[in-house]
């Protein structure tokens, strides 16, 4: 399998699309290297702007460019982009309705041992709470490619979070199911539904395989579109399976689990269990170690479901 980091794929797509589309502009905040945007900066110097370590400026300048017809991608670590410049995201991007895609790179606990300053375990809650802001956490580079191409077709604000590391793909090259703002049915099942986003989708898919070996038929939904969330897919899962498990690299407050629970509670009451990061600085370790510590991997998810069923 071809492992490519989602952030690298964003650069690849933007390099391809910007050959013909000179209105595509990428901005970084001294983050071109960590964002895998060095190639873009070098190959499209006329369409790349460096703002230095100034995330508020990054987002306001992006909005100014967008108001003049540019298709802007502001790329910066998710931890700083989502909170340091939250107000600029709210006012200059969402409220002014500018064509800016905020790309939070190395999201969640990607930065591992660098600590909570560099973690963005609340960015879904932050960005989704802003009226007129869309929020996406793609699961692999193939879906990331589809998402970026799709977002280039509209002029609306969006926030995307991607991880730091190259991860195994969830989908297969050449057959990537993708409709913007529709959850992807990764695996159908009748006993339980696992709803995941971002890097947790692969873990959910592998958990479903472990569960199958134990006679449990798990459905897996890739809810890369946190907002607007695919409510129909959630309601269908609540109607057709006895238990819903949400899995996210995020705290419980305002995340995937909270949003799914709201939909289920209102439309089709059913037990929902949220697997998430804790409401405290996470344990020190690499992503995989942190995930394992909190049960956010295939084994942890499968075990939790075995306990519940």
């Amino acid at each position: 399998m071809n492992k490519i980091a989602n952030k690298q794929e964003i650069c690849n797509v933007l390099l391809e699309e910007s050959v013909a589309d000179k209105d595509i502009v990428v901005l970084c905040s001294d983050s071109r290297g960590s964002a895998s945007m060095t190639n873009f900066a070098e190959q499209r110097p006329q369409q790349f702007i460096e703002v230095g370590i100034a995330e508020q400026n990054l987002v306001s300048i992006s909005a100014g460019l967008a108001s003049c017809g540019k298709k802007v991608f502001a790329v910066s670590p998710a931890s700083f982009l989502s909170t340091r410049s939250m107000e600029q995201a709210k006012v200059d991007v969402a409220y002014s309705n500018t064509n800016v895609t905020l790309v939070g790179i190395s999201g969640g606990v990607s930065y591992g041992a660098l600590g909570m300053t560099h973690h963005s375990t609340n960015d879904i809650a932050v960005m989704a709470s802003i009226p007129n802001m869309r929020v996406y956490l793609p699961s692999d580079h193939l879906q990331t490619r589809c998402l970026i191409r799709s977002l280039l077709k509209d002029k609306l604000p969006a926030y995307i979070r991607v991880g730091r590391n190259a991860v195994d793909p969830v989908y297969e090259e050449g057959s990537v199911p993708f409709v913007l703002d529709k959850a992807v049915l990764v695996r159908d099942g009748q006993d339980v539904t696992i709803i995941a986003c971002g890097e947790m989708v692969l873990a959910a898919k592998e958990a479903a395989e472990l569960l199958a070996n134990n006679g449990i038929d798990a459905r897996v939904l890739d809810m890369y579109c946190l907002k607007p969330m695919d409510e129909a897919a959630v309601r269908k899962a609540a109607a057709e399976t006895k238990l819903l498990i949400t899995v996210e690299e995020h705290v419980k407050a305002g995340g995937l689990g909270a949003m799914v629970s709201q939909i289920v509670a209102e439309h089709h009451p059913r037990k929902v269990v949220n697997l998430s990061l804790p409401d405290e600085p996470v344990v020190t370790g690499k992503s995989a170690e942190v995930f394992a510590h909190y049960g956010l991997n295939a084994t942890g998810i499968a075990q939790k479901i075995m306990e519940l069923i």
Partner: protein
Amino acid sequence: MTTGVELKKKSYEIRKDIVSLVHHAGTGHIGGDLSVTDILVALYYKHMNIDPHNTEDPARDRFVLSKGHSVEALYCVLADRGFFPREELQTYSTYGSKYIGHPNNKINGIEMNTGSLGHGLSIGVGMALAARMDQKPYRVYVVLGDGEMAEGSVWEGIMAGGHYKLDQLTAFVDRNRLQISGTTEAVMGQERQEDRWAAFGWHVISIEGNDVDEIDKAVEEAKATKGRPTVIIANTVKGCGVSLMENKAGWHHRVPTDEEYNEAILELNQRGILL
């Protein structure tokens, strides 16, 4: 409208509109409206390349009111310039109106929503960068308040404007020396504004900011300045033109009584006639 006298007369007309609007609606930031009026008049009646009937023209000049709370002044200018029917301002601040207490880009002629201080200059930097990328000659004007200069993000914008040598960008600081809690110098000192901007690579012009002739000359100088952005430190008077409001922090957002309103209109009429 090109002569100084015409512009000055217009400033008094706009001031009357502002006082009437705030009095009618019972809300507004009248002090700052009256300090920034002459800057808006110089830009909207003389310098800016804008067409009320073609507000999407890619070649248009851009304006951002970073001190968004002075929106009543902007509304009165835009209405008078024909961007929307004057009668629509009767709905200002009322239920369901798009004419809210800060700039709203659902209104014809308003580019960006502002109101939270410290955003507008960086937005202007983005606009000026877009102009450069597209090799278009349009100019970008941003008006900041002096109290606003305490926002750290302003300095990120100043830094970027200087770094990218954005000579199509002109900033104004409406230096009326008062903010809601008192004098700027008591709240957070803003002394030596000129030196601060110059240190970041900006061309600095300091003027009497309620003198349309001086504003006119400064904007001409900004247009002729190449290789760096220009800031015009406009030394203004809060509440300018209405004696009972001038230089009083309390008029940051006080609403005139009927008596005060009548007195203000009378004075503005007299000042206009004397020109």
